[in-house]
């Protein structure tokens, strides 16, 4: 392991296997990681119960606190923070993968309707088959997300070069599916409909250790996905034919990557509901911090995604003491201006 220079002069950390990572990317990852930890620590001290950062941090490492405070810390704040990070990580990762896959820098699992497909499938499960075991939920969500992905591919095709038209198609499906979800909401029992309507808007409202335990395997799955997919994505950027000619079996890897992206989205929809715009803005923020490709871009995007959700959730908890503002709403409100900035950058680039 040593530092070296790439062909184009970028300084990299090079491993014995020949693998190298630009130093700037490593620095960015370190910076994001520190930021995430700092926000997490800050978030531990935010909420309705009086429990400051200092006491919260001491309690995490073993100091004693009151029962009410312990409940707020262990059953509310910590699950919120961890689940938020995991969900944001997965959605942002999915967005970065979809963008490379479709060569469309504006692709987003929420805007393309994939999240809403997963959501509607879950609602159908809840309303019509309430007896089925909860462990099935991520698979049902996956089926819904894949259904929408198949529909878009059927309507649009892989080879459609027009990213904006695909996005509009996705927005159309997203609107329809959201309406379907509000119809299904009518048929849910009244005692769950408040929690469900929160979940429909994308919310950490239901965060608990059991939700985290259900989500953990899918979150863990993201690591091998990054390793396997990141390598392929580099060649995808050069177009299908070139990728095939370079030895990337696009016909096999593309459906596999799509399934992986939908899976990550569906798992996070199961846990926290849809988070729209996160998948499109996180990779662009990562690019703004440090330009990267392949695996590094996936990791940086995922870190930014986790960071944004934890930050958004903390903000809403800090400002609305009596009501829980759904995190998805906060993400949309932060996300749209950033998305517009992305549109602007895209427009500026196409001028040259």
């Amino acid at each position: 392991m040593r530092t070296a220079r790439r062909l184009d002069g970028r300084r990299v950390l090079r491993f014995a296997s020949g693998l190298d990572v630009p130093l700037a990317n490593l620095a960015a990852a370190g910076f994001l990681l520190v930021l995430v930890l700092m926000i997490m620590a800050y978030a531990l001290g935010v909420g309705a119960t009086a429990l400051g950062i200092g006491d919260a941090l001491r309690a995490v490492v073993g100091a004693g606190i009151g029962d009410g405070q312990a409940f707020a810390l262990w059953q509310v704040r910590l699950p919120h923070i961890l689940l938020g990070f995991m969900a944001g990580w997965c959605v942002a990762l999915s967005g970065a993968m979809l963008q490379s896959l479709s060569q469309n820098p504006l692709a987003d699992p929420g805007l393309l309707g994939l999240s809403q497909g997963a959501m509607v499938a879950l609602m159908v499960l809840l309303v019509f088959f309430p007896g089925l075991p909860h462990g099935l939920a991520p698979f049902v969500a996956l089926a819904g997300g894949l259904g929408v992905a198949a529909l878009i591919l059927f309507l649009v095709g892989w080879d459609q070069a027009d990213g904006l038209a695909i996005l509009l198609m996705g927005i159309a499906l997203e609107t329809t599916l959201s309406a379907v979800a509000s119809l299904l909401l009518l048929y849910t029992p009244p005692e769950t409909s408040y929690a469900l309507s929160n979940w429909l808007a994308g919310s950490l409202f239901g965060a608990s250790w059991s939700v985290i335990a259900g989500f953990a395997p899918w979150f863990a799955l993201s690591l091998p996905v990054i390793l396997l997919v990141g390598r392929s994505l580099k060649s995808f950027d050069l177009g299908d034919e070139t990728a095939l000619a370079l030895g990337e079996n696009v016909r096999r890897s593309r459906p596999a990557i799509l399934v992986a992206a939908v899976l990550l989205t569906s798992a996070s929809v199961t846990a926290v509901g849809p988070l729209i715009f996160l998948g499109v803005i996180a990779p662009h923020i990562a690019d703004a911090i440090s330009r990267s490709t392949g695996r590094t871009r996936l990791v940086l995007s995922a870190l930014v995604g986790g960071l944004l959700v934890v930050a958004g959730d903390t903000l809403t908890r800090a400002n609305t003491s009596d009501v829980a503002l759904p995190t998805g709403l906060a993400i949309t409100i932060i996300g749209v201006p950033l998305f517009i900035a992305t549109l602007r950058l895209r427009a500026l680039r196409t001028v040259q």
Partner: protein
Amino acid sequence: MLAATDLTVSYGKTPVLSGLSAAFVPGRLTALVGPNGCGKSTLLKTLLGLMRADTGSVTLDGTPIDRIGRRALARRIAYLPQETHCPDYMTVGELVELGGHSRYALMGGPDARDRNLFRSALETVGLTDQAHRRVSRLSGGQRQRAWIAMVLTQDSDILLMDEPVNHLDMPYQYTVLDLVRSLTRGHGKTVVCVLHDLNLAAAFADEMVMLREGRTIAAGPTSDTITPETVRDVFSFEADIFRRHDRLVCLPHRDDAGSPAP
């Protein structure tokens, strides 16, 4: 040797290649020529397995290419598409390093030999001092040379190129084709090149495969293959074929109305 036998390929119901056979002589520059829509690009894509043949087969040293995995095939045959697509963030260096994609292990990257290859490829195309620049900022000729460098680092014996000089200005067309020809002479590569300009093909190619409506009309060494008769058969016009400065020139006749005689 790369060879196609009795290939039939179609887009939906439209047949593009119908029973085409061709073999490509190792170490030589072979040009595929023919009128628009005769199946030149389709042939090239089928040779690499980018399109599937309905019947017939493409073999590499006797092995059908669909029995060779994509990664193994990428080490034997490289391909330069007609329309290249490069994201605007990518530098020349990054593009060239992607040429070794098929050789890198899952957790690996280019080794010392690969890195030497990158440098010599950039040297061959004359872009050594441009590796830090973005591909999107290069001139048309430089960009095409960057792509050729990428294809070279794939380190395959066979190169397939689809209209490598299509969008280039005349001087660039000659530089790039000189470069392509030097790959056969200096590096021992087999090059198959789609060229729609018959005069460019005549000037640079060692071998010629002339296509029309998905069939081979004539094939062989350039000087034997381009004749007034084959040109008539392939392009449906009368032309004088003569030598000037030791190069074959094809000059179409014109009828009284000023357009090429049918």
